[in-house]
């Protein structure tokens, strides 16, 4: 480096605001924890809630500001790519996902404290770790550079490895942490190797490099084979993180073993961040070959089917929801595939709105469901078999009622956002001539009703004679968390049109919910 050195670019602090807000809140929470509060963590929770609300507000303040990439390096000269490239992208997809992650974190923080106290694990470190994990997810969603994406993914994951093992005296929690860590490290190495190969083929870690190669169509077979191997490995890494079927083995064990509030955050936040990044990745790889669409469609089909079928055989509520989250990863992948196919094929271009909408609805219904399931944590113990939920509707009528809403939404029953989300995915799949995938999605939705009803049945079953005091009392945080999630699910259905307008991710000119009966 010469004497001129690096030229500091003007920093768009406003666009970075939400990210800095979440990180800084985590730091403040850690400083508060250094005081070692003796009575409770209410101060830390309060700071987290305020910080997250401010961060959410900052995301919305960015909403209509000019977007684009910043923190640019000299990408463009390497590969002839045009445009303003950089490490950080401020666009609507990133903002929607950031807002979603902040919301998910907020709900998680709301119901965590009561659960952690009941589990005898009220470690103040929980909150900074959750916030930094969320910050990692926000980084993943707001970059088109694969290395920065990897950095975000690691920040997200490392905090989660610790959180999964938070209940360190429980064997299951230890197992969950170790399994998640080993398989996560495995997935990371796939991803990193893939990124290295893509770098070898394109000379850049920015996604524009792939697009540039696809546009110029160089003659070299070697470049293409290296590029394809790289893309394949990165997709494997993604598949591990969002739990697509051949790479889903860790999910049930980790979801069963990790503390329930952590699982809620894991199921909602990680999927949201990873699918957002995947959407950006699909955006460019579809132009290299149509084979990716076929591969991903096959993965989606297998994921939906296997996830739902295995869920039918489970007797543990947390495992059922783990397989349900695998199945939902399959549904979301159908939307991602349809989006990719519409970009590269002779179809009407689809917007990113379906994926974003489904992620939002999925995030809140899963998180809400885990919030209710966390009520079995009491006096340092926690059961999660279906029998453990017998009589929940007696001791906690409101969460039980909201639980029915979450299950209805997960199963895709109308008047909930889950239904509209599935409907939109179905429509998207049809619009790119993937009738088989759409039908498979429909069949799978029907299968899934069976196991969601089993949990609802367990919650509504009464044990004759005596009822054991197995449930934690409902506190204000859990109550609010359930209410917020259920409200968002129903509002997402009722006010879908304004919501889509506000998100602004639909393809230009496309009517989002046109053709929906009764609208």
């Amino acid at each position, binding site marked *: 480096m010469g*004497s001129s*050195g*690096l*030229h*500091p670019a003007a920093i768009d602090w406003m666009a970075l605001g939400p990210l800095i807000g979440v990180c800084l809140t985590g730091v403040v929470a*850690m400083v508060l924890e*250094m005081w070692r509060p003796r009575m409770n963590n209410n101060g830390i929770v309060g700071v987290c809630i305020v910080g997250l609300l401010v961060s959410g507000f900052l995301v919305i303040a960015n909403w209509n500001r000019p977007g684009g990439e910043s923190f640019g390096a000299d990408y463009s000269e390497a590969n002839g790519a045009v445009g303003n490239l950089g490490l950080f992208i401020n666009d609507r997809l990133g903002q929607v996902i950031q807002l979603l992650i902040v919301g998910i974190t907020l709900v998680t923080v709301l119901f965590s404290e009561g659960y952690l*106290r009941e589990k005898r694990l009220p470690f103040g470190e929980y909150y900074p770790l959750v916030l930094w994990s969320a910050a990692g997810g926000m980084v993943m969603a707001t970059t088109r550079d694969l290395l920065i994406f990897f950095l975000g993914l690691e920040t997200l994951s490392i905090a989660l490895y610790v959180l999964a093992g938070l209940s360190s005296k429980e064997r299951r929690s230890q197992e969950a942490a170790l399994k998640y860590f080993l398989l996560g490290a495995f997935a990371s190495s796939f991803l990193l190797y893939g990124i290295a190969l893509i770098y070898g083929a394109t000379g850049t870690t920015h996604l524009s490099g792939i697009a540039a190669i696809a546009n110029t169509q160089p003659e070299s077979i070697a470049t293409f084979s290296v590029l394809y191997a790289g893309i394949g490995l990165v997709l494997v890494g993604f598949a591990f993180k969002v739990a697509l079927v051949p790479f889903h083995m860790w999910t049930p064990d980790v979801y069963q073993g990790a503390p329930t509030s952590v699982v809620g955050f894991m199921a909602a936040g990680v999927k949201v961040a990873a699918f957002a990044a995947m959407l950006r990745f699909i955006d460019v790889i579809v132009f290299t070959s149509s084979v990716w669409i076929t591969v991903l469609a096959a993965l989606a089909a297998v994921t939906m089917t296997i996830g739902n079928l295995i869920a039918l055989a489970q007797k543990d509520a947390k495992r059922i929801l783990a397989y349900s989250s695998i199945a939902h990863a399959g549904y979301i992948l159908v939307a991602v595939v349809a989006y990719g196919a519409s970009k590269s094929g002779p179809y009407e271009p689809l917007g990113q709105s379906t994926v974003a909408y489904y992620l939002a609805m999925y995030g809140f219904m899963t998180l809400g469901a885990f919030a209710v399931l966390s009520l079995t944590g009491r*006096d340092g113990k926690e059961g999660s078999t279906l029998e453990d939920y017998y009589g929940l509707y007696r001791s906690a009528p409101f969460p039980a009622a909201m639980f029915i809403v979450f299950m209805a939404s997960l199963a895709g029953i109308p008047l909930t956002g889950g239904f509209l989300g599935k409907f939109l995915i179905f429509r998207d799949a049809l619009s790119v001539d993937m009738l088989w995938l759409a039908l498979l999605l429909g069949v799978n939705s029907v299968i899934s009703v069976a196991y969601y009803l089993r949990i609802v049945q367990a919650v509504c079953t*009464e044990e004759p004679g005596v009822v054991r005091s197995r449930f934690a009392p409902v506190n204000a945080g859990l109550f609010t968390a359930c209410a917020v999630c259920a409200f968002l699910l129903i509002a997402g259905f009722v006010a879908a049109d304004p919501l889509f307008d506000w998100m602004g991710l639909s393809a230009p000119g496309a009517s989002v919910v046109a053709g929906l009966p009764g609208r």
Partner: protein
Amino acid sequence: MNPYLPIVLLLAVAGLVCTAMVTLSWVLGPKKVTPYKQAPYECGVAPIGNARERFPVKFYLVAMMFILFDVEVVFLWSWMAVFKDWVEAGSPAAAYSFWGVMVYMALWFLGDAYVIRSGALEWEESKTLAPEKLGPVRPSDTEEIALEPDLARGA
């Protein structure tokens, strides 16, 4: 001067120092031979025996903290190597990178303070949570309670 001469010198000095240390401790050091001291790894785990042995988890904690210090120094070193040039050239990058590193160091010190505060460097048992923090204490974990009258009627 051959540009590779410093490397050769470095190798020579390293070899000399290593040889001197081993030889001098061999020559000057007291020799009290015990079977344990004769083992290949004098201050580690016993080399022969059951490998499935319990190992204090604190070792890993210390190793992790060592890596943090290590990485911090690596960052500072590479920054320091270019910072001087920027200052001499009056580059705007000097102030920019200085404050960037200051933010980094502030966060790093905060983390360090946390490590000390949470007792991670103390070699005894880790601190436990205050009992007040653990939520309400109930009579018994597994005790079955009778239904309240109105619930019993409903059942």
